[in-house]
Every structure is written in C-alpha cells, then in structure tokens.
C-alpha cells in the first residue's frame, strides 16, 4: 500500500515539479535503469550518482524506477537470452569480455552474468525511446490535463482535507 502511495506521489510530483519536461524525461530514463537491471549492481551505483549529480528530475527517476521494476522482472527471460547470445554465443566478443572480467573494478560490474548484461543492453536500447515518450507525455499533460486537474473542484477540495495532509507526510 505504501509503495503504491509513493508511486502515486512520485507520479504527481514528477508531472507537477518545476523541472522541464526534458529533465523529468531524463530522470525517468535514468531511473528505468534501476528498475530494468538487477538493483545490486555496480552500474546502478553510477546511475544513482548521475541522478543526483546531473540536473535531472529525482522524482522522475523514482517514477522511472518504480514503473520499470515489474517490467524488469517480466523481461528477465528476454534479458537472459540476450545476455547468453552476447556472452556465450558471440565468440567474436570473447576478447572484450575477457578484458572486462580481468580489469580491476570493471570486473565487479558483474556484466559476465547473462541477466545483468542483457538487462543493461536492454536499458541502453530502451533509454532513448523512454526519454522521448516521457518528454511527450509530460509536455502533453502540462499543456492540457494538468492545469484543468489543478483547477478542478475535486483537487481543491481534496487539498483542504486532512487526508491530503497525511499524503504530504509521505512525500519523497
């Protein structure tokens, strides 16, 4: 329940934040990496650092993570197959993997695992489509639906309730 509430908050904050649609979309694209790839990986530490260092929307990144988390689980068989194709079946790439596997720090990235490699490649391939779709979505929302929702009696009424104050307590 709390996760759903937080997902909803991230969604609302991302759409209504001061960030530009590009910043929100970039946040969603970077956050997608956390959801699509196994979380406890070295590259995700880098992604988190990038989310905080680059001027991208942090709520957008959280939104991207939470949305892509179940997608990552669903796509695991595909990522496994992609990773197998690259790690095991693509003999020509073996020198690359050998170099990565035997390079300090890089070898900690665990890209020698089929699911990690497949999901990283999958995220790289999906990052730009996710960015563009998110940017279109945020722009469209802010131009049409957003102001109307902000002005709606329901939202104004909800904002005066104690339930809204409770909701604000859990804002990220």
């Amino acid at each position: 329940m709390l996760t759903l509430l937080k997902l909803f908050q991230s969604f609302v904050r991302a759409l209504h934040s001061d960030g530009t649609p590009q910043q929100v979309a970039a946040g969603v694209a970077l956050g997608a990496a956390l959801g699509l790839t196994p979380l406890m990986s070295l590259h995700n530490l880098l992604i988190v650092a990038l989310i905080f260092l680059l001027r991208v929307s942090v709520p957008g990144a959280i939104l991207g993570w939470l949305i892509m988390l179940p997608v990552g689980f669903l796509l695991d068989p595909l990522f496994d197959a992609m990773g197998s194709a690259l790690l095991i079946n693509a003999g020509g790439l073996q020198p690359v993997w050998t170099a990565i596997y035997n390079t300090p720090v890089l070898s900690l990235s665990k890209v020698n695992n089929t699911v990690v490699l497949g999901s990283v490649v999958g995220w790289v391939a999906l990052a730009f489509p996710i960015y563009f779709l998110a940017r279109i979505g945020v722009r469209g929302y802010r131009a049409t639906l957003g102001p109307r929702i902000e002005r709606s009696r329901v939202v104004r009424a909800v904002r005066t309730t104690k339930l809204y104050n409770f909701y604000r307590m859990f804002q990220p």
Partner: protein
Amino acid sequence: MKRPRLLRWRAIVPLGVVIALLGLVWWLLLDRIVELGIEETGAVLVGARVDLESADVRLRDGTVALRGLQVANPNAPMQNLFEAEEIVADVRWRPLLEQKVVVDTVAVRGLQFGTAREESGALEHPHPQGGLVAREVSAWAEAARVPQFRLEALGQVLDIGAVDPDSLRTLGEARALAARADEVRATWDQALAALDPQPHIDSARALAQRLEETDLGGLNVLRGARLAGEVQRTLSDLRTVAEAVEALSLTAQASLVDLQGGLDGLVAARQADYAYAIGLLELPSLDTPDVSPAFFGDAAIAWVEPVLYWLRLAEQHLPPGLDPRRYRGPDRPRRAGTTVEFPDATSDPRFLLEYGELGLELGGEGVAAGAYLAQVTGLTSDPALYGKPLELVVQRTGAAVGPSDVAVRALLDHVEAPIVDSLAVRLAGIALPSLDLGGLGARLVMGRGTTDLRLARTGDALSATWSWHAPQANWERLPRTGSEEPGTEAAPIGMRERIDGLVWRTVSGLRDVRIEVGLSGAVQQPALSVRSNVGEAIAGSLRRELGREVASAERRVRAEVDALLSDELGRARRSVNGLEAQYRREIEATLAALDAVREQLERELPGGLRIP
C-alpha cells in the same frame, strides 16, 4: 529562455558524504559480509550448511582470520565433513578488485574430520547444483553395494514358489519365437498358394507323357515345329516357376536360420534364468572373488567414498584449460541467469592458495587418529593460469594414538587436459577399524596394522588399490538374535550349527588378515573389487564342506526352472522344427518335382525337334 545547467554542483558534497557513509558502513560490516559470503558460497559448493563463528578482516595487514568453521556432510547432516578452529590467510588486496582471491599463505589450526554437529547441517532450500558431486558419489555407492553374505540362506527351505514364471526371460523369448515361426509359416503358405506350382508341374508331366507316346519320326514338319514350340514354352514356364520357388526357398532358409538362432538364444536365456532363480534363493556363491565383496563390500565402499568425493570435487572446481566457464548466477529476486568466467593467461586465477599449512587432528581411535601437518601448494581454481600442479604432503607431528609411519603425497596436475592425479598414502602402525561381519556372526578386530593407498587417474580413467594388512587380528563372536537362530524347517542345506561352527573355526584361526580394495574404470562409475584372505579361507571351507549340498540345491532350482519352462520351450521347438519339416516337404519337394519334370521333357525331346 535560460538554459538549465547540466550539473547540480551543490549535490557533489552531499553525494560524497553519502558515498563515504556507505563505505564506512561497508567497512564496519565487512567481517559479517565475508562471513555470510563464505557461508553462502560454501553451502552452494558442498550442498550442506557451512557455519562460521566469526571472520576478522584486516585490510591494512591483508589478513583474514576465520574462526570456528564447520562444513556439514551433505550425506550425514549431523556430522561435519570437517571443521577448523582457526584459519588465518594472507590475502593480496589488488586481485580483490577483480573479484579474485589470491592467498599467499594460509595456516589452518585444529582441522578435524567427521566431527559430530549439534544441529542438522541439511539445507532448507538447497541450491540445485549444490552437493551434486556428493549425490552422484552416493548414487554410485548405492549401486556398487554388494548384498551381504548370508549364512541363513544355507539353512533355508528351498522355496521355488518365490520364482515368478513371468519374470523368466526364457518364457517370453520362447513365446515370441513360436509366434515368429507361426508368422513365417503363414507367409510361406501365402507365397506358395500365390505361385501354385502344381498345375505347371502337372501340365508339363502330361506333355512329357504325350511326347513319350508320340512317334516323333512320323510327324510332318509343321506338327513337329508346333510340338517343339509347345515343349519350349513349357520348359520356359517351368524355369519361371522354379526361379520363383527358389527365391522363396532362399527367403525361407534365411527365416529358418533366424529361428534356429532364436532356439540357440533360448539356451542362453535359460542359463540366465537359472542364475536369476538361484539368486532369488540367495544361495551364496562359493567362488572366491564373490565371497570377499559380500563380507567387506560395505566397509570398502565407506573407505573409498570420501576419496571419490574429493577426487570428483577437485575435478569440478579445478578444471584444466582456459575456456570460459559457466555457473548458475547468484540467488536473488531477479532471475539468476548464467555467470560466465573468462580466464586470461596474463591475469590472476579466480582463487589461488600459493602455500598452506594445515594442522590436522584426527580424533578417536579410528583408522588415522593422531595429529598431522599438511602442506599444500598451488591450490587454484585455474590451474592453467598457475601453471603448476597442486601438491599435498602430510606428515605426522605426534600423537598418542596415531600411526608410527605416515607418508601421504598427492599431486593433482590439472594444468591441461587430460588431468592427471596421483595419490599415495601409507600409514603404518595405525589402529585399523573393527568390522562387524553380521552375516558370519563375527566381529573382526583388526588391531594395529598398515594401510596403503595407491591411486592414479588420467582423464576419466581411474585405477586405485587400497590394501589393509592386520598381522595380529582378533575375532569376536557376535550375539545371535532370535530370528537368526537355526530353525527346524524341512530340507535345510546343511545344518546351521554346523555351518556356524565351520565358519567360526575357519576365521578364528586367521590372525594375519589382508583386504585389498580395487577401483578401476571411469571415475564417475568405477568398478569396485574386493579381495581378502578371509573370503578365500571361508569360501574354501564352505566349498569343502557344503559344496556338494549347494550344488544339489542349485540342481533342484534348475530342475524347477526347467519344469516351469518346459511347455513353452517345447512349443517353440516344435514350431521351429515343424517349420523346417514343412520347408523340406513343400518347398524342397516342389523344387525337386520341377527339376524332375524339366529333365523328363528335355530327355523326351529328340534332337531333331530342338529349336536353338
């Protein structure tokens, strides 16, 4: 419009602080992380719980100290494969950045094997690949187990009813043979009916008769030519029919050879059925090679099982060559996937122990109780990268119970395929185990003696001999349970008391006991052989005393099996023999008739009427 800046400069310091905090937490929890890592990795490797009391990692000194390591036995969860009081390792830190562990030296103190556990070492959720080697070796041991020698069988009533006729191979084969003979007969009948040679023979005979009665000299040219043409057509017709019958004859002969082969096969099947029926009655074989495994088979398997386990484990975890290696990925909420390792000729192995000293303590009064020092060099997961074989030398450091002479040397050369392993163990003056030989109602107390193990492995081929010599063995009688008391059933083979007395007299006089266990063949499924002077002596005595009676019992079993088989065997024989007779009666007779009438026609036809 103002373009937003790319970086959040103000975030750098907080991010740095967060990363530093994470580093601090990692450093504070490092000991626990190492502890958990060893427990989890060990459990996957062994297939049973691995418990570690504490781990102490000192990054500045490059040392790791592990205390209270217990590795449970996957086949006996209340027992440890081994436990170590303390392990102190000097670890190089740089390879750790490549997820590799290179240990310059390690000192193991208080290493003990086969100690009891306080709680079960079985895993609640075993890793699918964990303990695979242990399971395979256990499966081999189960398959290799030899039924114990049972003197009771010598005194039992022969119960032929125990032989299920349906389980006799001969019956099935005899029925199938008779059915095949019936099929062949039907095929012949059909083929002969289709050919129907009799009208052709009759017609030719009639023509021959006409020729004989005709004055050929008085025929004019036209009639003579017509008659000659008729004769040639008939001869041609006879040749065609004869060729078809000959073809049928060839097929029939092949079928007969096949069926005769089936009859010969029934003889072999009957021999197998005799062996099966005799085996059901558990009459002991008195051939020497069979008797020793029945006495010492279980002990031999218990001795060689750990050797095979460690040998197979070394094969699995110390593979030769530099090919990429695949393992199941880590357990996590996401799919595990496959982790592939890519060894590089110029880099460090994934795991390397350059030199280790292990202080072994083998407790109790068992085979090798005592204190030892083991020195191991070149233990690595990538022997091809290390380039040298693993060497293990064990020497005695002193013990009250232990052996007076110890020589253990192992060399595992896995640098390149085929892997070559050799192991030589000689322990002299050790307390050899006592063996309960329940089947004989006696315990063999081997006392002090010598054990000698020689093992050589090249690729998959294994050859090993493990000999045990007890020059001053003693024998103790085991108390008999009520059910084992000799009964008063009818028709016993020999008297139980007599057999007991005989066996006891034979073994109790044996002071010098030698047992030799052999392993040969593929390392995954080696053949086990056991020889002993005890088995030879008992077999010799029993053969002298009971050989005639056992032979008589076996004759009775054979007679009973013959009685069960006689109907079906007779039917199969009759079918095949009947078919042979039919072949001679119908096919050979037809061919003979065709030949005879053809010859008659050619004889009756004068030269003047022959058409070239």
